Every structure is written in structure tokens, then in C-alpha cells.
């Protein structure tokens, strides 16, 4: 009888139930909400499903999926002491995979896939798109000021502010370099707000524009030659990397992927970058990011601030794009619809779709999608430049 009692007690003590805390339960609930949003509401399912599942894995006590036996060698998340006699490969499987996040390999590979899927044609046919893409980075700098005022350190403030770029890989890249301990809330806020763009942006667009402005029909874009599409990624990389070398990893991969797509002789590489590789890295990145959201470390006042600052950054980025769109509307005597400025936040292509849908609400014959794609892809470059600037300023 004693033996049975000891066995039962042993099973209980080693089970997750014995060490389960309320924070873990809350995070399991949050993961459940994310799964509902992803599966039934179709909010960014390719990202939210792996992120939510990573959150579940990280909040199962005893599973040790994120155990680090090296004392921080695999990413300085919780600063645990090294386990004597243990090797790095004795660490939790997700912690080993997390090296891909910490080293920025995953965000950079994602950018390669994004590049292979991006058509810079609309931007090349309307260069003013780049100005709108720059304007839509306003939220980054506004959120940075607010974050500093709230007491965050400059590195933390810079990482949080990049959420305003509406670019998940860039936010992860910056946070992993500047404030790895905030990676989980930053990544979750960035991807959550990207998924909520159709809800966040329209009221701001409506508030800042007149009916007449929203009805503007833009003229057809010029046809862009293949050579232009080949030259562009090479020149952008060289120019930006020379000015801001810290932006080179992201932009380098983005432009490499785009060159695969445009050069016409690397179809297999382009196909791999935008499908197989992109899917594999999305799974690994999503699960690892989700796995950083351990309830005990995650549920803090800081997390709420980050979520709020992310929303502020998104709102001001949208406003920045729309306001410069209004300026261009005046300068061009009504040829530019200010709504496309909102697409300057780089969530590709959701932000462009929002501009298209809003434009059609006020003029059913309007077709703004291709015009909005210009600022949209310019925003990707803009947020990478902004991240590069933050890294130059604050990287240790």
C-alpha cells in the first residue's frame, strides 16, 4: 500500500498540476482566445496558430520546453543559472530553436520570403509612394517618446516603438537585439495589431479626410520595365546599407528574395523562398515567439504598457501616412487620394486592402489597391530603416 501511495505521490509531484500557477492558466486562456481568433475569425491564422500553440507549450509546467541549461547562452530570457554538467543540447527543444529568433536568423529568412512575394512595381511607377511610406513611420517615434516618459529604458522604448512599423519580423529583429526580455509581448502586440488593421485604421482614415478627398480616383500607373525591377532591389540595398549598416540584414534578405523573383532566372529559388522556406520559418518563428510568453514572466504591468503603446504607435503611423497623403493631395491638385497614405504602415497587403475597401465605400468605381501597394511596400523599407536607426542609437 505504501508503494502505491509513493508512486501516486511521485506522479503528482512530477506532474505539471503540482507546479501549475494561475499565471499559466491565464496564458492558456489567452492562447485559447488566439486560437479562436485564428481558426474561426481567420485573423492572421498562419501566425496566430503557431504563436498560440507555442504559448500553450510554454505554460505547461514540467514540460521544460523552454528550459535553458546553459544559463543564458541560448537567449537571455530569464537569466537562469547554468545546470552543472549539462550540455546545450540538454535544453528544451523550443529553447534550442529559439536561437533562430535570438540570432535574428528567422526574421531575416522571413524577410527573404516577403521579398520573394513582393512586387515593387506599384512603388516604381509612383515614386511618391516612398514619401508616404516614410510618413507612416510617425507612430514609431511618437511611441518612443511616450515609452521613455513611462519609464522604459531607451533600448526597451525603441523596441516597443518599432511595433508602429506594423512589421512583425522587424519588431522581432529589433527586440531580439535591444530588449530580448520584452520579445514576447512586443511580437504578440505587433502581430495582433497587424491582424486588427481592418478595425484600427478605418476610423482614423475617416476622421482625417474629407468625403471629397476619399472619392479621388487616381490615374493609371505607368508600366514598369523588368530592368527597373531588377535594378531597384540592388540599389536600395546598397544605398540603405551604406547609410544604415544595421538595417542591412533585414533589407539584404528582403532584396535578395525580391531579386530571386524579378531576375527571371531563379524561379526555383523564388518559389522556395516564398513557399517552402517561408512556411517552415513561419512555423518555427511563431512557435518560438509564443513559447516566450510564459505566464510567470509575461503577466506584468509592463506588458499592458507595451500593448497600449503598440496601439498608440499604430494609430499615429496611420495618421502620419494619411496626413502626408493630404499634403500630396493639395500639392498635386487632387490627383492623390490621401487614403493610400494609411497603407504606408507596412502590414502587407492588409493595409493596402483597407485603403481599397475604404475608397470603394465612398466611390464604388474607385480602385485604389495597386496605388496603395506602393506606400505599403515602401513602408516595409521605411520600418527597416527606422529599425536600423534605433539599432545604431541604442545597440550595446
Amino acid at each position, binding site marked *: 500500500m505504501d508503494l502505491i501511495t509513493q508512486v501516486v505521490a511521485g506522479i503528482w509531484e512530477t506532474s505539471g498540476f503540482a507546479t501549475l500557477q494561475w499565471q499559466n492558466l491565464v496564458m492558456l486562456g489567452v492562447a485559447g482566445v488566439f486560437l479562436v481568433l485564428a481558426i474561426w475569425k481567420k485573423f492572421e491564422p498562419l501566425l496566430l496558430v503557431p504563436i498560440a500553440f507555442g504559448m500553450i507549450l510554454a505554460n505547461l509546467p514540467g514540460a521544460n520546453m523552454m528550459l535553458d541549461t546553459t544559463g543564458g547562452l541560448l537567449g537571455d530570457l530569464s537569466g537562469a543559472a547554468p545546470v552543472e554538467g549539462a550540455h546545450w543540447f540538454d535544453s528544451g527543444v523550443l529553447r534550442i530553436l529559439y536561437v533562430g529568433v535570438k540570432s535574428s536568423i528567422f526574421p531575416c529568412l522571413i524577410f527573404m520570403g516577403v521579398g520573394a512575394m513582393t512586387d515593387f512595381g506599384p*512603388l*516604381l*511607377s509612383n*515614386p*511618391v*509612394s*516612398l*514619401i508616404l*511610406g*516614410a*510618413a507612416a*513611420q*510617425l507612430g*514609431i*517615434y*511618437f511611441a*518612443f*517618446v511616450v515609452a*521613455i*516618459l513611462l519609464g522604459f*529604458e*531607451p*533600448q526597451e522604448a525603441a523596441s516597443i516603438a518599432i511595433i508602429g512599423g506594423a512589421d512583425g519580423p522587424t519588431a522581432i529583429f529589433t527586440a531580439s537585439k535591444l530588449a530580448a526580455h520584452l520579445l514576447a509581448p512586443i511580437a504578440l502586440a505587433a502581430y495582433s495589431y497587424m491582424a486588427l488593421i481592418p478595425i484600427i485604421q478605418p476610423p482614423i482614415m475617416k476622421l482625417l479626410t474629407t468625403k471629397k478627398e476619399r472619392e479621388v480616383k487616381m490615374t493609371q500607373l*505607368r508600366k*514598369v*520595365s523588368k*530592368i*527597373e525591377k531588377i*535594378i*531597384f532591389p540592388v*540599389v*536600395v540595398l546598397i*544605398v*540603405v546599407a551604406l*547609410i*544604415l549598416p544595421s538595417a542591412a540584414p533585414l533589407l539584404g534578405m528582403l532584396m535578395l528574395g525580391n531579386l530571386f523573383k524579378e531576375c527571371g532566372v531563379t524561379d526555383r529559388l523564388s518559389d522556395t523562398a516564398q513557399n517552402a522556406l517561408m512556411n517552415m520559418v513561419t512555423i518555427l518563428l511563431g512557435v518560438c515567439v509564443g513559447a516566450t510568453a510564459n505566464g510567470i514572466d509575461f503577466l506584468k504591468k509592463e506588458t499592458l504598457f507595451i500593448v497600449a503603446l503598440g496601439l498608440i504607435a499604430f494609430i499615429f503611423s496611420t495618421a502620419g501616412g494619411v496626413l502626408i497623403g493630404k499634403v500630396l493631395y493639395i500639392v498635386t491638385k487632387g490627383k492623390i487620394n490621401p487614403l493610400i497614405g494609411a497603407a504606408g504602415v507596412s502590414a502587407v497587403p492588409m493595409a493596402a486592402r483597407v485603403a481599397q475597401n475604404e475608397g470603394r465605400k465612398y466611390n464604388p468605381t474607385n480602385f485604389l489597391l495597386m496605388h496603395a501597394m506602393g506606400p505599403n511596400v*515602401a513602408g516595409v*523599407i*521605411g520600418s527597416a*530603416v*527606422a529599425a536600423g*536607426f*534605433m539599432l*545604431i*542609437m*541604442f545597440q*550595446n
Partner: protein
Amino acid sequence: MQALGVFENIYGAGAEMGIGQTLLISVVGFAVVFIVLGFLAIFVFCMGKVFDILQSKKESKEKAAVVTPATAVSTASPEGTPLPSNQSIGDLTLINCTEEEAAVIMAVTSAKSGIPLNRLKFNTIKCLEDNE
């Protein structure tokens, strides 16, 4: 980093920034984004202009090349009458086929074969199978 003396004192974890420095960093950062993307906009604009000029020159050359042989055929016509400039030659019999469908077939044939419509002769267009 030393070259950026004004920012030198804000590096490193735990560094504190005053509101003045924060605003300065924000303004400079926003300006850097505008300058870099503005430079790229100018580059893209200039590149577009250069390629537009090259394209228009190429198109005008191609147009000249297409017009020349057509004129030659026209002058060589046995009846001594010029060929129609924008339609096929001769009479066309349509069997179970509307004029619109025939026009589409002729246009597609011309486009796919690369032969201008005024150098093609259609005798009959017949619908072999009717789905209805």
C-alpha cells in the same frame, strides 16, 4: 559611434534620457527615414524617366519597322489597289457563328501569329460543335 558625439551618452542598458534628448532622437530618426526614402524616391523617379525615354525610342523604331513591309505589300498588290489598313482581305463566310465571335477569332489569330490583320485572309469561320 564616436562620430555621433551628440548621442554618445545615451548608449548602453540603464542609460537615462531626458525629454529633450528623446525628442531630438525622435526628430532625427524621423528625418533619417524621410531622407533615405526621399533619396530613393528621387532615384526611382529619374530611373523611370530614363527608361520611359528608352522605351518610347524603342517603340517608335518598332512602329517604323512594322509600317515599312505593309507599304511594300500594298504597292505590290496585283489590282493596284491598296490593302485595307485595319481589316482582313476578301469575303468571309460565317457558319453558326456571330460577327462578334468572328471578330474575336480573327483578332486572336492575328495576335498569336504576329501577322497584322490586313495581311490575313479568312475564308470561312464555322462553329463545329454547339454546347447548347
